[in-house]
């Protein structure tokens, strides 16, 4: 069946060539070009043969791939599920339907992860436009698998205006907060847990439209109540006998007032490559009751960025000096109001809350380089130390660590960081979404 068809087609080609060969031989690419071996092509929608049989994967290739297909099948299913989810939710996100007014009340679920074993969830209520057009009220609450209970309120008015207002309030009851003792030489083996219940509120008058060039006048209230912990072992009382820690199991309440500010001059606020950024915080804490301590709480931070022959390669430096100083008649600071290596002050390569004392020094150098879009890889070296006073800091006692990770500049106030750092106490990995450094 095939042979005559081939013969006919080829014969057609040959005849066509003969017909067209009488003139000058056209050259490929010329305006008069007609391929010499092509017969009348015909219409694909007419009846006629196909050029090939349906194709199938080669058998040997199927045999080769089969075990891998089976092995990776669960991952394929996950990928397909994710694809469907992206399609469904992505559509809702990208094409939200008729545009609604900017204001309005929105309730949504929120999930919080405090670690591999601590996942919390709860509602989040956002009311854009409350009480006025450019303001936003956010209320949220969560309850975690470790029985941590949190509630937060934030209200911003005129956040991007030269003069604005911000109110923050929060409640946090954490039954397994870590404590290792006070000082720079505490042992990791002394890890213990206690419950800390904190209630706070702070109002700020914002002077300056940009959070990176802004002075904030603040006033607020803070209550801390350390108690017997649960959801972990050993308890603080088992490691540090009663009476050995200042203000153990004793709640304190403070009124706070002061000023905080940021001044930055950066080429790119999300991913700076040239510039400096200075931060300062000062709060005076006055005890609500006679038994509550009076103290000053302060923080100085400097950041500097310099490109390495190109903006995509950056040396970033960060230095922080923070502390609390008792004032008035107060001589002893509550253990839970000392400066701690946690949050933005956490020492890389060490667990959170690993060190605490009246003063803290932290220095870090990073080399960052562009990997993909705004995702930067980074290599870091860090020195951190806590001490009871400035004269007690020594280079030899500093806690060092080195490591690497990834950074994604989310906004000019926050960055997502995935870090792994090595210290004398081992390897620690962290995933954070906080400071913009």
């Amino acid at each position, binding site marked *: 069946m*095939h042979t005559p068809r081939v013969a006919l*087609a080829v014969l057609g080609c040959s005849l066509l060539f003969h017909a067209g060969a009488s003139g000058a031989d056209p050259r490929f690419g*010329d305006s008069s070009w007609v391929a010499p071996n092509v017969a009348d092509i015909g219409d694909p929608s007419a009846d006629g043969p*196909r050029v090939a049989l349906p194709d199938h994967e080669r058998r040997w290739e199927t045999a080769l*791939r089969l075990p891998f297909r089976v092995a990776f099948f669960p991952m394929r299913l996950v990928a397909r599920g994710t694809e469907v989810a992206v399609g469904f939710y992505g559509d809702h996100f990208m094409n939200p339907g008729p545009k609604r007014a900017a204001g309005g009340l929105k309730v949504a679920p929120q999930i919080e992860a405090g670690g591999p074993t601590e996942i919390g969830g709860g509602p989040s209520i956002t009311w854009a436009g409350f009480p006025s057009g450019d303001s936003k009220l956010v209320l949220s609450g969560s309850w975690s698998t470790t029985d941590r209970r949190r509630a937060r309120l934030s209200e911003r008015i005129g956040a991007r205006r030269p003069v604005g207002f911000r109110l923050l309030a929060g409640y946090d009851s954490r039954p397994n907060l870590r404590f290792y003792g006070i000082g720079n030489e505490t042992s990791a083996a002394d890890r213990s847990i206690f419950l800390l219940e904190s209630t706070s509120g702070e109002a700020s008058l914002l002077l300056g439209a940009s959070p990176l060039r802004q002075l904030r006048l603040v006033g607020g209230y803070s209550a801390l109540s350390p108690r017997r912990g649960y959801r972990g072992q050993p308890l603080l009382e088992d490691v540090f006998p009663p009476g050995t820690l200042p203000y153990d199991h004793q709640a304190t309440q403070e009124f706070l007032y002061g000023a905080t500010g940021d001044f930055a001059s950066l080429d790119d606020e999300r991913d700076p490559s040239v510039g400096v950024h200075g931060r300062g915080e000062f709060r005076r804490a006055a005890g609500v009751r006679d038994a509550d301590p009076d103290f000053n709480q302060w923080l100085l931070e400097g950041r500097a960025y310099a490109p390495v022959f190109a903006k995509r390669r950056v040396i970033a430096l960060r230095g922080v000096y923070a502390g609390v100083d008792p004032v008035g008649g107060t001589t002893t600071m509550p253990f839970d109001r000392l400066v701690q290596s946690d949050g933005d002050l956490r020492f890389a390569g060490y667990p959170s809350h690993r060190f605490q004392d009246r003063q803290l020094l932290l220095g870090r150098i990073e080399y960052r380089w562009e990997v993909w879009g705004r995702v930067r890889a980074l290599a870091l070296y860090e020195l951190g130390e806590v001490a009871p006073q400035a004269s007690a800091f020594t280079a030899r006692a500093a806690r060092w660590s080195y490591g690497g990770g990834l950074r994604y500049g989310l906004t000019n106030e926050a960055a997502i960081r995935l870090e792994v750092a090595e210290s004398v106490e081992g390897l620690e990995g962290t995933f954070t979404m906080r400071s913009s450094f």
Partner: protein
Amino acid sequence: MRPWIRSRPVLTLALSWALLLAVPAGVLGSPAENPAPGAEFSSAAPDTSDSETDAATWADHDGRPIPQPPDWDPNFLGHQFREAIVEPLSHAFDIPDKMLFVARAFGAQTRRDAVNVNAFDEVPNSTWFTNRNHIRAVPVAELRMGPDSTYLPAKPWTITHAKHGGASVGFQIKDAHGKKWLVKLDPPGHPQLCTGADMVARTLLHAAGYNVPHNEPVRFERGDLTLNQDLERGTKGERLTDADLDSLLTKGAVFPDGSHSAIASLFLSGHVLGSPSLFRLRPGDLNDRYSHPNRRELRGLYVVSSWLGFWDTKDADFLDTFVSTRDSLGHVAHYILDPGSSFGADALGPKMLQDGFEGFVDFGWMARRFITLGFVIEPWRRARQETGIPSIGRFESAVFDPGEFVPGVPDLAYHEMTDGDAYWGAKIVASFSDGQIAAAVDAAQYDDPRAREFLVRSLIERRDKIARYWFGRLAPLDFFVVQDQELRFHDLAQDIGLTSARAYDVEIESAGSRAQTPKHVHLSDPVLPLQDLEIGAPRVSIQVSITGSGAKPVRVELTRRGTGWLVTLVRHG
């Protein structure tokens, strides 16, 4: 050892097969595992599954009447996620693929040839592709027209819907003659950027052989637009007010005279079925029987795209329609829908510097940057792409490397491309003359004379680079015919002026009962006299290479017909 332990590999294999058969074939992700297209429709459908094939045909009859397939359109974002994230990751961990890669390094032929290739190493006409410029030069005037004669959407326009999906801003209109168009605005500050890119790219793609919609660059004023009453009132669930329209128009480019710059795309005839997918055949399309990544026109599109800088070739930029012919039967037609992200353009403005040089999620470049601590210098950083011409954006030809062009999302067909497929694509690109390129650029009607001059020059330079690159890998010897007992062929590189006259080495091997020892002939012209060779065999295999060139030779098969010879097979690579 217990017997069941000894037989574990057999059990594993059996279990593998059982699982394979138990799950839906498409789920496993291999294009070749698609079920026979339209198997579920076979009882009602005309017989299009005949095994009649003709390797020498110039028309692959895939437009035969079938019932209308069900609409099926991959979810845009889900599919983007799959193309940009899942498939690259999947490919990174594709162990058999790595094994085949290693085997290839030792000379094994593991790549699969394209399926829809005829005996002359060409793609027959089909509902996907029509042989045009490289077979018969398209006259300049005809080329500029594109798929249809030039006609514009008549004003005034009535806006019937807002544009949904995609990055560009626009709306659907009904023109004064009742024709439906999609109007897409150029990005602010860049009149004619996407419009120009779309017009030039679609004109060249059409002349190359692909199906494209009828697009026209348009300028309009606010007064030319009226809102459909249903749309304005929102009675059908969708609402667009005058204020919304005013706001929408501010997101588009305007000319110095205040008119708006946009491209109008006439709605395709027939029923829109949705985008095709490279991962599967279209369900219900009885004519669709070659895995899409194994279609040569989709593989070779890589080379054409590299020429045009058409980096956004995701599935969503293609569209299938069902064209009815008779008795509710018809066939599926396949279009390249949106080539606007070509040259220096993107829907949101000038393209990003890395577009065309690295993928959206490019693990290879990520790894290179990571390992070198960011000191690697990517080609797109070396390229001077800032043209300073608002209607061109970022484009260049100096650093352009035809073998290193990278689409935004990985393309399965490009991944499967062989040298033969690339040669075919390069042949199409090389077939365009300087005059044809200039005519295609004129279709954009650029206001800025610098834009025309720059684009014509860049396209000529890129065309020549493509021809040199791919014609250097495979001998560009083509269009073999037997005339007067001579085998004649064209040296395409010589024809288009890339090289001067050169010599060829021919190795002739006869087949059949009267086979003789191979003969070697040296030619100074692309003409091989067959009479002098005294071939007694009914069939001969001829290998033609360029003297002193490292390019792979061309294989030609001649079959005796009566007293003469006929070319029965040509293969490049």
